[in-house]
């Protein structure tokens, strides 16, 4: 939870007060709860995990237990100002389809993901091993992360899908923003954050 503070703070900075938000993979509801209190946003969290659903309910967050891989078909077009996907993109079955869905039901999308281009991952791959790091703590055989990408990969996909990136940030594993990160984001950034909309 501590480790996610900065990425939540960056997301909170990006979001206009009193907007309607859909949080995909809302976890224990911390982000929506924070946004509700600090930005007066309203909306829903979608979550699959039983424990997280109960925690969200306990927190007073509107949570709907659902599998993101089943899509967002029950939500009408343009129902939300923002659709957030925080550290979940890499774990869904159809990332490109989900991005499209995000921009169907919402005006803007916000995505955060662990950057596979982070130098530590590159070094581990060069040594012939699948990367394991603080942002990617799983072994290859038990990881839920099936669609890892780098900043460049993500930006390529956005171009291909006609998605315009409005804002982006990278942070390190302590979720700090440093000068080096701004110069070499794809190498030094451990977590990437993007805000985007249809071009």
């Amino acid at each position, binding site marked *: 939870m501590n480790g996610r503070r900065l990425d939540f703070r960056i997301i909170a900075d990006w979001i206009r007060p009193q907007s*309607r938000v859909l949080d995909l993979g809302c976890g224990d509801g911390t982000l929506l709860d924070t946004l509700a209190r600090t930005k007066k946003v*309203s909306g*829903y969290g979608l979550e699959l995990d*039983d424990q997280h*659903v*109960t925690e*969200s*309910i*306990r927190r*007073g*967050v*509107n*949570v*709907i*237990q*659902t599998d993101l891989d089943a899509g967002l078909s*029950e*939500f*009408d077009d343009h129902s939300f100002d923002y659709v957030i996907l925080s550290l979940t993109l890499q774990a869904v079955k159809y990332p490109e389809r989900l991005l499209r869905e995000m921009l169907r039901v919402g005006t803007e999308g916000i995505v955060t993901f662990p950057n596979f281009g982070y130098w530590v991952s590159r070094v581990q791959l060069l040594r012939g091993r699948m990367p394991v790091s603080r942002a990617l703590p799983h072994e290859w055989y038990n990881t839920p992360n099936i669609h890892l990408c780098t900043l460049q990969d993500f930006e390529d996909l956005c171009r291909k899908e006609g998605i315009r990136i409005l804002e982006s940030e990278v942070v390190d594993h302590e979720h700090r923003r440093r000068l080096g990160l701004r110069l070499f984001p794809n190498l030094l950034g451990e977590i990437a954050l993007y805000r985007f909309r249809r071009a």
Partner: protein
Amino acid sequence: MGLVTPLRLRIEQPLLLSSGGVLASYELVYETYGTLNSDHSNAVLVCHALSGSHHVAGYHSAEDTKPGWWEQHIGPGKSIDTRRFFVVACNNIGSCYGSTGPASVNPVTGRPYGPDFPMVTVRDWVETQARLADALGITQWAAVVGGSLGGMQALRWAIDYPTRLRHAIIIAAAPKLTAQNIAFNEVARQAILTDPDFHGGRFYDHGTEPRRGLRIARMLGHITYLSEDIMRQKFGRDIRGGKLNFDYQVAFEVESYLRHQADTFVGRFDANTYLLMTKALDYFDPAGETEGDLSRALARVQAASLVLSFTSDWRFPPARSREIVKALHDNDLDVSYAEIKAPHGHDAFLMRIPRYVDIFSAYMERVAAA
């Protein structure tokens, strides 16, 4: 919950029914648990399902062997904590557990209503429950809660009296029955209606009751309340006495179970009530008033909702609950939804399943906070 005593309220104000009929006066039997707070803001209404009653928790006497039907969830420290909430449970009209129903005496004829008892709907029940709330000085329920047909009443409350409840808790319900649901109900009704002891619903006058029909109806119902998995788990193909007798006596354990359920039902349930309750289920369809558009049907709702379903419920499966959830969030209403993994089928809503208790309790804390 300890010992509880049913209470009785007579309502002289005529009830205009959805069917067009009128009930000039009627009685409601109800129970309450816990204490109503000074600003009357902690009242929770529990609505019962097809064969339920106002007796939701506790025992009626020291000799009573079975507690109320939702004892698992209502009481001190339970999902609906009676140290915090004032719980009201009302027997619906048309029932056979004390509120005015087909077995009650028709004041016009001096004989039981029988088939003359008017058809009642979920909407009619909600209206009678509102009269009870008036009498108890409850202008707004903290929550209206129900499972199955009871969940449909909670939904109807949110539609019909948007300002009179803060939360609706809708468990193992559906926004309307499917053709398959109605088909099962119709078989049950045919079993009763064609029983020679039914006498057109006037069996009271003949000192009998359509036992065979009611038994079959109940057995059929029980098949739809359980999942295939739980039946396999509970009974499998186990044979009573270990060998086949090549006759029509009970061979398999599942037959014994169904016969037992039928035996205990007959004698405590009224065949006319069974007919009425299944019709109320069949007719329930709030979206029927808005050209099938459930979202529009819920446009006036203000309450926040918790919707719960159970994975193995094939009577009202999770997808049916999701229809309710969608219509609620289409209207930008506060709604939470959880699908509880349980092997028990539709009956799961009656049980004490740890995750079910966790979620129900967590939500009730939110009800208490607001």
